[in-house]
């Protein structure tokens, strides 16, 4: 029969259902002693070739995490909203791609979201102690109480994932449902996926599963089918099966060779000097922002666009006098 994906073979500790200090492998802007024994590494595998773009994962993510995304607009594509937001941790991105070899159209649908890098650029770039932690099972989690909303995690992320909330000015992204995984459940998106395009388990199991899928895809003529587990970030705990693993970037700009910006390493050097100097923190942060983002120049247009984003009105605006969605 159709094999139901069992709850992941990740042991849960009923006594301490949430991951805690004992499980922390890395902590932003802090030195930690890694646990003597790592938890089994977990991974979510997203099989792009099985995905029908139904957005059940996106809905499940909103529901489980109790997120209220705004009702937006149509911008001429199926992707909605148009980008990740502080309330949209995962997003289906649709790309119409004509295969130059076959001249056939392919509709590439990729579920975007945090990749949970083994070597997390966000965590390395984060100047706020303990705002980002990595558990020894590989999950990278944001601790909002410690977040200062500086946005460096975005700059540090090779995948451009975290987003800063305008409400509480802290950074948000997929948690890999660390609260569910901690009690032996798979993430909400995996649970909701009707075609098992999303599966979850130990990283080793997921690699084995991917191998089967890649064999099947190769038998169907996808010679370059493969697993996306990029070594530039030490591998990831969210992996993709791609039909065209030789060109990840055709999938809505999935980086071909993601790596952490060298500027983050430079910043890491800086932290050694200022790490304990709390008074110097703001200056250092300002400096890093200058290095990474360049001098602050906010044009009037930027402001307007920001306002519109905040209002949920899309740029570019429709012709004057005919604003969308206005009620009579």
């Amino acid at each position, binding site marked *: 029969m159709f094999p139901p994906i069992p709850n992941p073979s990740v042991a849960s500790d009923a006594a301490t259902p949430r991951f805690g200090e004992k499980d922390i492998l890395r902590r932003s802007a802090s030195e930690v002693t890694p646990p003597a024994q790592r938890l089994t590494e977990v991974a979510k595998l997203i099989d792009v070739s099985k995905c*029908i773009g139904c957005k059940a994962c996106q809905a499940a993510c909103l529901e489980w995490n109790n997120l209220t995304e705004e009702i937006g607009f149509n911008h*001429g594509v199926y992707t909605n909203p148009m980008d990740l937001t502080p309330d949209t941790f995962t997003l289906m991105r649709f790309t119409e791609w004509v295969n130059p070899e076959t001249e056939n*159209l392919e509709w590439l649908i990729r579920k975007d979201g945090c990749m949970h890098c083994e070597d997390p650029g966000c965590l390395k770039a984060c100047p706020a102690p303990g705002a980002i932690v990595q558990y020894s099972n590989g999950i990278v989690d944001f601790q909002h109480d410690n977040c200062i909303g500086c946005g460096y995690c975005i700059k540090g992320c090779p995948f451009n994932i975290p987003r800063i909330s305008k409400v509480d000015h802290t950074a948000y992204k997929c948690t890999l449902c660390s609260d569910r995984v901690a009690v032996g459940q798979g993430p909400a998106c995996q649970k909701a996926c009707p075609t098992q395009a999303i599966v979850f388990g130990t990283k080793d199991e997921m690699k084995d599963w991917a191998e089967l899928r890649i064999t099947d895809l190769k038998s169907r003529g996808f010679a370059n089918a493969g697993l996306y587990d990029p070594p530039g970030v030490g591998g990831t705990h969210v992996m993709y099966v791609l039909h065209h693993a030789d060109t990840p970037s055709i999938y809505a700009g999935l980086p071909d060779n993601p790596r952490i910006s060298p500027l983050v390493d430079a910043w890491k050097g800086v932290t050694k000097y200022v790490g304990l100097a709390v008074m110097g923190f703001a200056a250092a942060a300002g400096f890093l922002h200058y290095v990474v983002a360049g001098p602050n120049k906010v044009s009037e247009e930027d402001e307007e666009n920001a306002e519109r984003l905040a209002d949920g009105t899309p740029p570019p605006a429709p012709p004057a006098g005919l604003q969308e969605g206005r009620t009579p």
Partner: protein
Amino acid sequence: MTNAWTDIKNTDLVVIMGGNAAEAHPCGFKWVTEAKATRGAKLIVVDPRYNRSAAVADFYAPIRQGSDIAFLMGLINYCISHDKVQWDYVKPFTNATFVVREGYAYQDGLFTGYDESKRDYVRDTWEYEIGPDGYAVVDETLQNPRCVWNLLKEHVAIYMPDMVERICGTPKDAFLKVAEMVGECSTPTKTMTSMYALGWTQHSKGAQNIRGMAMLQLILGNIGVRGGGMNALRGHSNIQGLTDLGLMSNLIPGYLNIPTQKEPDFTTYMSTRAFKPLRPNQTSYWQNYRKFFVSFMKSMYGSAATKENDWAYSYLPKLDVASYDVLRVFEMMKQGKVNLYFCQGFNPLQAFPDKGKLAAGLAKLKMLVIMDPLQTETARFWEDHGTFNKVNPADIQTEVIQLPTTCFAEDEGSLVNSGRWLQWHWPGGSPPGEAKTDIWIMAQIHLRLKELYKKEGGTFPDPIVNLNWSYKDPGEPTPEELAREMNGSVLVDVFDPADPTKKVLEAGKQLSGFGQMRDDGTTAGGCWIFSGCWTEAGNMMARRDNSDPGDAGMFLKWSFAWPANRRILYNRASCDLDGKPWDPSRKLIEWDGTKWTGYDVPDIPPTAKPRDVGPFIMNPEGTSRLWVRKMMRDGPFPVHYEPFESPVANVIAPKVRGNPVARVFPDDWKTFADIGDPAYPYAGTSYRLTEHFHYWTKNNHVNSVLQPEQFVEISEELAKEKGIALGGWVRVWSKRGELYAKAVVTKRIKPMTIDGKTVHIVGVPIHWGFVGAARKGFTANTLTPFVGDANIETPEFKAFMVNIEPSTGPVVA
């Protein structure tokens, strides 16, 4: 579905045509991905748009909407001319060998007996030759030029690949690739499954679209087998239950018929329902019609239905027309012939074509009663929503009463899925506010009406005052009571005629199945096909044992499937003439020398010898039908007819417009664009999106986030030609109305060449309206024509003509 969702995992080839399973049935689609992943099955998608199903297909072929029959007849032609025929199946299990009566003919798109003034056929000649023995004449050698096989060969000869390309716009090489993949499934060890939905039904020849594929599946030997079948994917979680329970003006539960005026008494009614076998030894199971009918009448009228009054036959309405389908009722409403309209769980202002006409009808009612868990456009038809619903409430005198109901998740009951499984469900939450169950509301209305009729009399109070209403709490029958009633029970002890001391059936007990139903008034049963769902062993629909012997995908202990818990209909046909499975690795049932056994409930009397009794036990032939006699209004074979609005004339029958027997109300002709009308040059089609469920989920915030605003889809070529920008506003209009929407400009739609002419497609998703959480939009049915299928009046939503231009968006008043 002839088969079940779970059975799709057994297939080798999935053909999605006339539907978009990944988009509209994402949960069931898991069985397609399962077949692909574990069996290496292939998936073909044939559709006007490269859609979500196509995104995971092995092969995609474009087709113009409304031309499916040409494609399917082309496939049959290919299979016949390339000998891709499972002969050992076709000869004994179809009516290929049956000889058709002299006088029947087909020419230029019409069959014998056409009466243009009536838009109907005199169908007398559409019958078999009957021999001196009283049985249909067959020619096992297939030499007789009038045998069904030779008539079929002749009928499909015109649908050559070039012709298919000319009509459908499918490139010849793409068509041939599909034909080749399909043809491979003519071997006994390879099966193909057909998954279709509204993409086939919502045409003026919808039923014939489906017949076309059914014929192909029979030629390939794919009916009755694991991984095969004709699988209608129902678009609503209980729409299968709706048809099963006969919620149509011309049906009685279990696909029995409401009498017509030509059948004033029971004897006349039964005279055309003898269903005498057309071949020796055949079961012709409808011979039991009387048992099901009488048991139904006993269930309805209890002691008031007696042998003497012909089981209260006079209580049943007698139809003066073919049916009071929704189109007819709205036509009558528009003519001012309807006073009160009860609208239960239905949003016709969106769900039926030509919104302008529908709204005009509703405005002529005296009263409209809405029973719905949600706010609907129909309930608010009188409200001015500016350009989205421009009305003057002062002009509308209709009184509208809204009765809030519970939704499916708030009450108990059963839902029938596409695979005919009756699955019991329990409430997941409490209803809000004053919402009441539909049962409570209907019971309360019934009791009050009954009281009024008792007190005041009336022209014919009997059917109301004598309605059997023996529920514990008459004010609110329970779902259990109703389910038990559907199953049926014994009313009077029945003794063995051979041994009067032996009690066969005991009064008060639940029936174990429809096999126990009797025509002497000793049994009652509300819906014969549901019998077995709630027996003395309890609620079979609530069973949740997912064991699956032989990994066959049958799951016989999970819920209850009608009929008789059978998961694959016609499963006798999974074996050869001697009762051996065609494919031993996919055994379903087999003849063990004395009886039929296996993983499914045999669809044949268990001890019927294999060579004696044919597998299609419902049919008097004992076989399936490639040629359907006079049972369909528009012909015994499918013919390519253009939609009523079409970019080109019918290539194979230039004089025939649309389906020649589809009903068109006189006033509606002028609302159709002419063939090839330059004012409406683009081929429109309407459809659903994964993110939404019909017109419900626009009330839900999350769904509205995922697909917030109305759009139409067009090709890059058309966008360029018309100067339409990606995400820009467009106005789309037909001869009936207009809408404004955003433009999704896509490579997934391509212009097609039809009979030498470039035809652009405009895709119109249907989910928006002027009520709900999502952004306000226009009801898509503003554009669609008021005409339905010739046999069952399903509206032609899939093919109509429009125009489009860039716009600055709706002007909001």
